[in-house]
């Protein structure tokens, strides 16, 4: 199935240390000595080399690894935090619901990526800070979706029936409500991966990701910008990697959507 692209990418990301021909941080010295800015396909550099002679292919592979696990991590945190908030709000209703949703709405009412930029700029660039900042602005979306699903389910009479059957609040939430929200959250998450990859690449492009020399795709593209007209591959290859990764994720996300029968 198309949806199995997700585990496949994860597997590739896990195997990057084996797959990458060179150390992403260390310049490669060739027989001719200098290896700076070797064009793709020459001297064994599949995607060329950068200013100080590091293998762009290896860096891109490691960049994919970082991007992928970052995206998975943020999505997972969004699903867990947002799912928990949405579940509690949707299942409780009333004041708890109002308060939690006010908070969620306040987050949603702000331009998440811009706030994330500001947060990272304040805390100082590091991958962890970026992940935290993005996660902080990312969960409310999931909270909204889960809460919506839960509220819709809570309107069904099976919940009334379960309450009359004497089911505890916890069991009501986890057995009678949550499973119904799972398809929505899984489908949303799988379609969200591409968005997140692109957004995080944008932050990284602004220098708000893992600092150099960590191979981050957005940062690599930004670094390569000054060589765009002379040594294009340094900037373009990481960009293409994000494109490919996002495209695969979107195709896989579409597969998940069809699998779970959502439109």
């Amino acid at each position, binding site marked *: 199935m198309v949806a199995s692209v997700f585990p496949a990418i994860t597997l590739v990301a896990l195997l990057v240390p084996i797959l990458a021909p060179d150390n992403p941080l260390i310049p490669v010295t060739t027989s001719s000595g200098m290896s700076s800015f070797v064009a793709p396909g020459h001297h064994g550099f599949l995607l060329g080399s950068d200013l100080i002679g590091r293998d762009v292919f290896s860096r891109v592979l490691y960049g994919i690894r970082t991007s992928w696990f970052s995206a998975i991590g943020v999505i997972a945190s969004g699903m867990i935090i947002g799912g928990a908030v949405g579940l509690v709000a949707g299942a409780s209703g009333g004041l708890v619901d109002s308060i939690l949703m006010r908070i969620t709405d306040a987050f949603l009412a702000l331009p998440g990526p811009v706030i994330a930029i500001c947060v990272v700029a304040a805390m100082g660039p590091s991958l962890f800070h970026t992940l935290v900042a993005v996660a902080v602005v990312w969960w409310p979306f999931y909270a909204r979706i889960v809460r919506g699903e839960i509220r819709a389910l809570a309107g069904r*009479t*099976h919940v*009334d*029936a379960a309450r*009359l*059957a*004497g*089911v505890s609040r916890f069991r009501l939430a986890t057995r*009678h409500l949550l499973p*119904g929200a799972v398809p929505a959250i899984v489908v949303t998450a799988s379609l969200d991966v591409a968005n997140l990859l692109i957004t995080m690449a944008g932050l990284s492009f602004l220098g708000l990701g893992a600092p150099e020399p960590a191979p981050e795709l957005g940062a690599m593209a930004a670094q390569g910008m000054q060589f765009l007209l002379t040594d294009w591959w340094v900037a373009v290859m990481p960009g293409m990697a994000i494109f490919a990764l996002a495209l695969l994720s979107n195709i896989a996300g579409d597969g998940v959507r069809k699998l779970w029968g959502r439109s």
Partner: protein
Amino acid sequence: MAAPDPGIGTLAGNEMTMSETSPPESRQGIRDQVDGRLHGSGSGLDAVASTEDLSITFARGRQRIHALQGVSIAVQPGEIVALVGESGSGKSALGLCLLGLLPTRPAPEVAGTATICGVDMLTSPESEKRAIRRSRLGAVFQDPMTSLNPTMRVGAQVIEAAGSEDEALSLLEAAGIPHARTRMRSYPHELSGGLRQRVMIAMALAGEPSLVIADEPTTALDVTVQAQILELIRELRETKRTSFLFVTHDLAVAQQVADRVVVMYGGRVAESGPAGAVFDSPYHPYSAGLLDTRITLDGPLAVELPTLAGDPVDNSVVFSSCPYLPRCPSAQARCEDGVPELRQLDADRWVACPISADEYSGPGLVSIRSKARRAFQPAPRTLDLTESPDSPEIQLRGEASDGKASSHQVVVTVNDAEKSFPLGRRDSGRAVLALRGASLRVMAGESVAIVGESGSGKTTLLRAISGLTPLDSGSVQIEGRSPQMVFQDAGSSLTPWMTVGDILGERLRKERMSRHARRARVIEALRSVELSAGVVDAKPHQLSGGQRQRLAIARAVMVPPSVLLCDEPTSALDVSMASTVVNLLGRLRSDLGIAMVFVTHDLAVARTVADRLCVMYLGRVVEEGPADLVCSNPGHPYSIALLESVPGRGRFSPVSGEPPNPVNPPAGCSFHPRCPQAEAACSATSPCLKTGQGEEMSGLHPGDHHLVACIHWGGRLGSS
């Protein structure tokens, strides 16, 4: 009942057609009859709509659903033809097919013809079909809320069909919409259900169509409004000579409105003929069975209702014999020889049953007609008028130690229940006043039916008793085990991702027992509702509608509550299934001795299931008394109106207007704006429940008393 319904159709492989069995002569006969009735003015002698050997097959996943199999019908000018059948009979697909609006994704396989005024709605180019829809056809669909564009003023929507504002205005007036000019500026959500349906009718009538296809146009409406709409349709047929193809599952409605009836089963015509003839003497065993299983206001009480045997037809299976054979009580050996063809009985009666008229009165048919009906064991009860309503021994929602309430006890006491639901924001002050001081008392083992239209507060009262909806003021007291509830939509009342075993087993979580014992109890509960033990690992969606409702009942009673609350448990079911469920509830009640509160809008069902009847209007009880007595001798004008509105009795529009908005109930007796007997005092005073002798009893004294909240009540009794 969602439309379009691909319906049933089990005879895919069968080559039988009905076109040859529907010769022109017979249609000529019908037309002559109709023309005669319509003041002899039938100039266009051709049918306005006809289908020839129409077959429709939908692909649903890997399944092929045979919705229609070789159906030939004709609608003559000025005729109202009712297309009757249970869900899955293909009746809605037929209507859409005539409109040329069959779903396109995925496109169904269609064979045969469906002609409107000589234009084939299957093969003609889209532009031609559109022209026909515009000039010759009108359509009225089931749910007037969703069928109108919510973002357009209704006036604009009618103008779109009518062409001009004046024309739209006259159409709206013709459809009986008061203050039509101002209403044109309303959005659909600002209108009541009845008005919306009238708007739909006005749009359908735009451009003087030859035929209006009405797909379950009254199913979503209250009975009083239904009666008005049915009357309107009859009226329009008289004044405009418009033909109607009236698709309905409700035999009584068909009986009320139609000139001719076509009964469908399994995607085929089972029987067709003049309405009177078919309803008086149904020929096809299915028609007969349908009529017999109907719950009526004059049927015998305290006996099991007759039911159709077997399961509804599976329209994905290919049959090689009569599709009704597995359920047919009159089946003969030759019924297995291929699918029966339509044959002519009289000049205008056709039936697809091979059993001859001689055989027809054979033992098979008799067996359903006079099947021995098991009598219900009436629950023991005693009337104790001395008991004080404020009796302190009644515990608030207490769990009785023995679980079963004693038969002399009052198990449910509701005092002056009030409940409102805020509309929109809390501070806007606008609220739906669902309960406005309703009181109710239910004795152990007693069955009480609460009857009322939408907005009467009957469901809120039921939910208040269950504890699901806390009251604003007033009190609810329950004796014995906490109540259980059976909901209207069984599908939605079952957790979709849990297995049957889990759903039932959950009721036993509080009891310590082994896994094995629990499973045994679950299977026992399934047996008690006539479900096989095999379904224990199934999920709800794998069950049929009737099975789901039985499962819901099993869940409710597997630990018997002191009172079982039923919220319209039959209204979403087909006629035959409804009877089964009513029977099941009756049997469980007598077996387990539990009290029952049964909410319904259907007086006939109420009379059948209940010992006592309670009529609600706008959050109050307006009449209360023994079920049979209330039905035979109603006291409150509203109850009278409800009874008169029950379709199938040939009477129309006993009361004008619609159920008022529970946001702003009228002062005084809230029924007075619609009441034919209203006088000045009615708008001033709010009458209490009284006995015929004028004793105020406020609904707290159950028993055989007949209580009515109307200022005319005592006097009326005196005069009669």
